[in-house]
């Protein structure tokens, strides 16, 4: 118990130590987060009318972001899997960082769920026993179960590992390894269930095909690792933690494969839908060329396709992929391309036209953007905190010292870190 309290306090203390750059970053995030809180207040008083959503297009920026972030959360498995199943040494060292990303991504998903719901004050209606939790019928109920489970799994695995490292007691593999294996499978399942959420509705022909879950997984495993690569590069530059080239290179290879598959699936969807050009293809046609003269999403589609193609080519060429000056560009392009494709390219056109043929357009409002940016900011805030503390433990700066129960040696020297080998 005492160790646990020390773990928490040492963790927090380490996080709070930082220079100007760190506090500037956290300050900006905090400001943006305040925007999200204000937008949430507005939505709970005036209602969703402050957004651009309508009865016709009733899932907008929030749902798009939440679907995308589930994918990012699932992407953490691209670290865990090689680390534990293939015993990849470089990955093994940084697994816990992936789990921290998964935790913050799932928290972001939850924030977007609150933003999206008409009545977040009635969320308790979903609790089993107190309310009604509609299993096995409702896909949303399965999704909630999967996401909650994933959050708990990552929390348990990640923090148990960190706690073990902190106290110096080795991890009990009899408990730990099964949890890790479960979390690997569970990661795949969260994004599959999210895909099922929209792919099981015949009312929405643009989503109603068996390719949806595959598409979701491939884009998740392309976008997630891109973010992780960028995070690793920032960690290398700004902390004392050194992440192996082999880890980054493996992630880049995973992105290459998955991005390629995602582009292949996109191509196959376009061919199949547009060959016969039935009414079921109206959503895709709206996205690509416009419908009835309404074309607001057309530039988004083509730019996302361009981003993803350029990123894919960059990832494909080994000399570019291993060039750590060009790799971040490719990662950003892929991440942004997939974000646009999930949001504007998948969620919004699913509602255009409505099942009875009405074509309308969707324009997010300022408040919606403020809320979305704010939720991302909260997520990044949490991510920074978690990663910082985790790094501190991983590089050995945060360690439990039984002699000085309150402070750890690293602090006694006034913050000057001990030299550490990249281990």
């Amino acid at each position, binding site marked *: 118990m005492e160790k646990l309290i020390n773990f928490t306090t040492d963790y927090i203390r380490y996080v709070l130590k930082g220079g100007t750059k760190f506090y500037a970053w956290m300050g900006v995030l905090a400001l943006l987060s305040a925007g999200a809180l204000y937008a*949430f*207040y507005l939505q*709970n*008083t*005036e*209602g*969703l*009318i402050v957004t651009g*959503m*309508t*009865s*016709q297009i*009733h*899932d907008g920026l929030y749902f798009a972001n939440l679907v995308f972030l589930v994918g990012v959360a699932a992407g953490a498995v691209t670290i865990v899997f090689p680390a534990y199943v293939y015993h990849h040494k470089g990955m093994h060292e940084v697994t816990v960082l992936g789990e921290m990303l998964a935790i913050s991504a799932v928290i972001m998903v939850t924030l977007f769920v*609150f933003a*999206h*719901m*008409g*009545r*977040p*004050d*009635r*969320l*308790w*209606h*979903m609790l089993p026993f107190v*309310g*009604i*939790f*509609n299993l096995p*019928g*409702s*896909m*949303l*109920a399965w999704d*909630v179960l999967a996401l909650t489970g994933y959050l708990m799994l990552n929390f348990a695995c990640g923090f148990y590992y960190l706690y073990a490292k902190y106290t110096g007691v080795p991890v009990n593999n009899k408990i730990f390894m099964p949890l890790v294996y479960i979390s690997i499978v569970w990661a795949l399942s969260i994004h599959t269930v999210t895909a099922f*959420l*929209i792919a*099981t*509705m*015949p*009312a*929405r022909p643009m989503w109603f095909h068996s390719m949806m879950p595959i598409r979701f997984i491939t884009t998740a495993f392309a976008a997630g690792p891109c973010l992780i690569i960028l995070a690793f590069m920032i960690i290398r530059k700004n902390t004392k933690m050194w992440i192996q080239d082999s880890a980054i290179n493996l992630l880049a290879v995973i992105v290459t494969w998955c991005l390629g598959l995602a582009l292949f699936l996109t191509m196959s969807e376009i061919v199949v839908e547009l060959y016969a050009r039935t*009414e079921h293809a109206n959503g895709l046609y709206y996205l690509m060329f416009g419908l009835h003269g309404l074309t607001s999403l057309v530039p988004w589609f083509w730019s996302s396709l361009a981003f993803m193609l350029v990123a894919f080519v960059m990832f494909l060429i080994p000399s570019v992929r291993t060039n750590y000056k060009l790799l971040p560009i490719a990662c950003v392009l892929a991440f942004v391309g997939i974000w646009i494709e999930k949001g504007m390219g998948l969620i919004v056109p*699913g*509602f255009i036209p*409505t*099942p*009875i*043929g*009405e074509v309308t357009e969707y324009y997010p409002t300022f408040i919606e953007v403020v809320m979305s940016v704010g939720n991302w900011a909260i997520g990044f805030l949490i991510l920074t905190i978690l990663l910082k503390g985790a790094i501190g433990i991983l590089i050995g700066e945060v360690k439990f010292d039984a002699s000085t129960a309150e402070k750890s040696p690293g602090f006694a020297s006034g913050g000057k870190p001990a030299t550490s080998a990249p281990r």
Partner: protein
Amino acid sequence: MSSLMGAAALMAQTDDPKATVEWAEHFQTNYRLMTPAGKAEARARLERRYSAQYSKKVTVDTTEALPGVLMGYALNIRKCIGCRRCVKACVEENNQTRGKSPGERIEWIQVLRMERGEFAQDKMNAGYPEGLGIQVGGNAYTPAGQVLEGQYHYEPEAVPEKDATYMPIACMQCEKPPCVKVCPVRTTYREADGPVVIDYNWCIGCRMCMGACPYWARRINLTTPVLPKDEMNPVTHYLGNRPRMRGVVEKCHWCLQRTRQGRYPACVEVCPVGARKFGNLLDPESEVSLILARKNVFRLKAELNTFPKFFYFYD
């Protein structure tokens, strides 16, 4: 926290203390699972609140499903002239929000105007590709007859127009409703006598049901409903036309406040051409049963296996 903020927001609607949402209403359980005593309490609470809010005596009926009844509906698409009186009658009866800003007005019925199809001689050579013989005729892409493509916002001087047919669409009250299946909290469900209903106090506003409905029958209250006191219909049913609140989904429920008392729904009564018919599918003498027996009847999107109890026919 969100619960508190939401509750605080709700309570700041009017200055009449009786019109505020009582704490007990926040914590009431799903209507279907309530005991009769619980239902009576919920009913009393709502009657108090609505009567204070709308300055008139409001009744909230809780009549259960009628035994031996399966409600059915039939609409004669040959007769419909697209006058939209059913749309407006429904709004007169069912207390929908009716503000002026976009998103503040809800109508449960939408009338689709379809074209009869115009085929022209001068389009004959306008197909593509040319050269090796035209593969797609020039008169393709002209919608003709019963299709789910057309105009919803038509505004001619007079209806019916010569080159148009009309089809109103609202909730089909399916026997196998996709909306019921996806609801995570089981707030929408099929009542024993047929209609698919929503417990507005239990809905969390996730809008999964709106995505799953193949007929676009459901609407979301994007804001606190705008309902002037003099336009409010004080005879309500708990699962029917009682005034809704911000953030919950609503739809046609075949005027439960009327049909459970034996009266026709408002849209049936108002149709000037008598295109709409309503009755008990289990009664062979009812007009709907006779229509099924005698006329050619079809359902929209029957291939989706939703089994609607709203039939279209022509004669």
